[in-house]
């Protein structure tokens, strides 16, 4: 439960998960922001107008699923590192999950990494497809990792080169 351990329950997550029909159409942003806090960079970062402008800075972000192209420009702008892009059309068996990753070492494209769930538990292996780490990301690299499709809504972190802990 978010309020006691920082891990959302299935019920807490549900309103943030796009419907299956949308996921079949291509990549989409999933904003795992569940608490009204004074913060709005996600909406100012969105170039397609998919993350609607906030009337009140404390509003929860809402994604217009038709407008969202899954470009991922919002990922590194979220101070809470709470935005992920999931592409369930990546391949027949795999989904691509893009996530913010502010740790060293950074994985190389093509590298196999452990993939972790929201509690930091290793749930499998994934292959890094892309690493975006330019001036725009401003030291919040965005790593896209291919994972078994059934883990698209589970994987939210990676571990590179073995257990750091």
């Amino acid at each position, binding site marked *: 439960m978010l309020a006691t351990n920082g891990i959302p329950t299935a019920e807490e997550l549900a309103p943030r998960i796009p419907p299956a029909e949308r996921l079949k159409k291509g990549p989409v942003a999933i904003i795992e922001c569940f608490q009204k806090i004074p913060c709005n960079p996600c909406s100012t970062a969105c170039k397609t107008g998919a993350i609607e402008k906030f009337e009140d800075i404390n509003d929860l972000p809402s994604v217009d699923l038709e407008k969202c192209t899954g470009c991922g420009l919002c990922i590194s702008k979220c101070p809470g590192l709470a935005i992920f892009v999931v592409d369930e059309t990546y391949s027949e068996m795999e989904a691509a999950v893009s996530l913010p990753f502010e*740790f*060293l070492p950074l994985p190389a494209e093509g590298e196999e990494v452990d993939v972790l769930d929201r509690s930091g538990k290793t749930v499998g292996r994934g292959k890094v497809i892309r690493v975006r780490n330019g001036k725009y990301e401003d*030291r919040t690299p965005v790593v896209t990792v291919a994972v078994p499709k059934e883990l698209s809504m589970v994987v939210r972190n990676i571990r590179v080169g073995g257990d750091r802990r």
Partner: protein
Amino acid sequence: MRIEEHPILTFDRGREVEFTFNGRKMKGYEGEPIAAALHANGVRVLSYSKKLHRPRGFYCAIGNCSSCLMTVNGEPNVRVCTEKLREGMVIETQQGRGDLK
């Protein structure tokens, strides 16, 4: 104990200098706080409380709390969390309240 690689930061360190801690030779970087240099050398006990002589380290690291008072170049009650390291400094654990020479 020193961070060599960091995902966000780079550390612009001064030149390496020598100093002594209770007579032991140590190395640190010029301009960093004495407490940071000591910590990098594995020294965490900086002072002893005045009444019960309990070991003390720093607490706030920004000059607020007086938990880190040491004798530096003969001068007692120096806040080593903010005092900058210089070449050849003589740093000692302070006993009691300290005397002005």
